[in-house]
């Protein structure tokens, strides 16, 4: 394939403009009304998850929360374009995607609550554990995809990362392995402009992150990350290509982290309020709502239904996280190895004895 076929479009693909008006793009299919309604519902739920998680941090029920507020279109589209047999590889910021894939919200937040590291069984909904060391999960995604290929299974893997992660060596190794083994992986980069405090300009001087794909011999595309219609279309095409044996591709979504890196961060130290304000008008929810309302697809009744669904998820989060589950000290030793070593059995007994004596005294 000539290398120009791998190049991303001149501008990020946009199918809905900032005011929710449809943009014609002959190269991209516009999602169906049904898909857009489903995506809008997921957006509203996703926004509610972010708001509720933020509140739970303030109430001391979550240790930390890296919010995807403002990036919900990326979050929901990544989950919606996958089938049951596919895999999602999320980062720590992708709670909304994980819940969108069907994982229990309370199990999803176990890591950030601090009860355990990964609270869900990754094999149940085919969602890998959230990974905090950047880009390391991308190469795992390639391995999962290659195992599926070896067994002749119809599995596509969505491998997510942010703009900062594209500077890591594992980003390079993952894309190169995927291309060499023609693995069915979609690398989905949410470029939200900042890696904690460091702006994109310090990560790369490449024309775009999507251009990096060319160097690996795979197609790259960029998309308006606050346009759920464009994301469904572009990510859907990438998944379809991977599923049909065309190999991996890279999709860069241009979006913005509306809140600080986490609640522990102070974004006013490194970015200006007017920069943030400029992105408020580009909110992904406003756009899909305007389009669907204009098409008379989003009735008052439907809006109320969606709000109720979002509230139900928030209630599950609140109820689950307000409960104090006593962590089991013995779990510290239980899963280090399939069978604990004699040394770990000794240490587990030591701790159990120490705890039993504390209870007595």
């Amino acid at each position: 394939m000539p290398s120009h076929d791998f190049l991303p479009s001149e501008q990020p693909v946009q199918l809905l403009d900032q005011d929710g008006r449809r943009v014609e793009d002959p190269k991209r299919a516009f999602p169906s009304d049904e898909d857009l309604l489903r995506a809008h519902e997921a957006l509203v739920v996703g926004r509610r998850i972010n708001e509720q998680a933020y509140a739970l941090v303030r109430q001391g029920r979550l240790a930390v929360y890296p919010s995807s507020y403002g990036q919900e279109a990326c979050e929901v589209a990544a989950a919606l374009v996958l089938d049951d047999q596919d895999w999602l590889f999320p980062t720590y910021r992708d709670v909304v995607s994980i819940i969108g894939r069907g994982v229990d919200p309370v199990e999803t937040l176990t890591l950030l609550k601090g009860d355990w590291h990964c609270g869900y069984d990754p094999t149940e909904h085919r969602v890998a554990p959230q990974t905090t060391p950047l880009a390391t999960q991308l190469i795992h995604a390639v391995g999962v995809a290659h195992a599926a290929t070896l067994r002749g299974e119809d599995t596509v893997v969505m491998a997510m990362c942010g703009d900062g992660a594209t500077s890591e060596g594992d980003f390079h190794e993952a894309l190169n392995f995927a291309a060499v083994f023609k693995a069915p992986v979609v690398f989905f980069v949410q470029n939200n402009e900042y890696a904690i405090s460091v702006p994109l300009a310090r990560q790369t001087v490449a024309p775009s992150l999507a251009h990096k794909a060319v160097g690996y011999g795979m197609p790259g595309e960029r998309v308006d990350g606050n346009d759920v219609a464009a994301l469904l279309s572009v990510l859907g095409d990438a998944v379809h290509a991977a599923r049909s044996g065309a190999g991996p591709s890279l999709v860069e979504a241009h979006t913005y982290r509306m809140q600080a890196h986490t609640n522990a961060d102070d974004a006013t130290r490194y970015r200006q309020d007017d920069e943030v304000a400029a992105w408020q008008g580009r909110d992904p929810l406003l756009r899909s709502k305007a389009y669907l309302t204009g098409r008379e697809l989003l009735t008052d009744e439907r809006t109320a239904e969606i709000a109720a669904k979002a509230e139900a998820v928030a209630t599950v989060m609140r109820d689950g996280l307000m409960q104090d589950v006593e962590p089991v000290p013995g779990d510290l030793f239980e899963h280090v190895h399939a069978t604990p070593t004699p040394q770990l059995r000794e240490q587990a007994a030591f701790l159990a004895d120490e705890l039993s004596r504390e209870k007595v005294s």
Partner: protein
Amino acid sequence: MAEHEKITMAQAFNQALRDAMTADESVLMFGEDVGALGGVFRVTDGLTAEFGGARCFDTPLAESGIMGFAVGLAMNGMRPVVEMQFDAFAYPAFEQIVSHVAKMRNRTRGALSMPITIRIPYAGGIGGVEHHCDSSEAYYAHTPGLTVVAPATVADAYTLMREAIASPDPVVVLEPKKLYWSKDEVDLDEVQPGIGRAVVRREGTDATLIAYGTSVPIALEAADAAAAEGRSLQVVDVRSIVPFDDETVCAAVRSTGRAVVVAEAPGFASVSSEIVARVTERCFHHLAAPVRRVTGFDIPYPPPKLEHLHLPSVDRVLDAVDTLQWDDV
């Protein structure tokens, strides 16, 4: 007893890989130069021809990628065996090993296991240039979740590799480069003690030498030399660094009351210092002298023309034994 052909340790590793791949289709062997070439030490010789390029294959030249690829394959039902071409070339994979391979079972409370075998040709004594002779066992042994073995005999090379591949957990197999071409007549069907077990290689009554991997032959040679001088040295082959066999090692030390640990890695904060600590904690009242160590110096691995000054030698082991307070002054 049936006659058996003499084979090298490299051939024993190769046979273990072949038998494991025959027994279980999910076993995959990959890394750098492991395909057509058969590995720079020929440990994977003939595997691609026998099992095909989908089962034994070369990857892009990227150790972190190789290890992370193994993680993903293991997540999705495969049993990967990876070759890190040389000890000191495995460091780019270190983050994947420490952050994911070692932690995945614990992180997911057992939902995901990592049946990965990490083959690392290790240690020196082969005249290798810089970055080809590191003893990196302490890094791996210090990482909770990893099993670490270092075979010293041809029979153990086969047994420990088979056990590593069959293990539901990640196992680092430290293959002593210096011993790849050592030969022995072995019955591969004979059951050897498994991972987690140390063995007494030579009985003795005066002092115990504790060694693993490349240092076991040194310890045995030292015991021979000591015997000629009328001193009876026992030799314990640790074999399994993690899990460590406290029971066998401590029983041996208690039986003689004196011990020297022999290992070629730098001694500071090392596996050898851990062994001394464990033995001292558990056998103090049986000891007639402090436990001594013969280790490499705390220096970067030397160039080939100087490595003999760094490596434990028979003389150094015998000198250490001589200092074990044999006579009251």
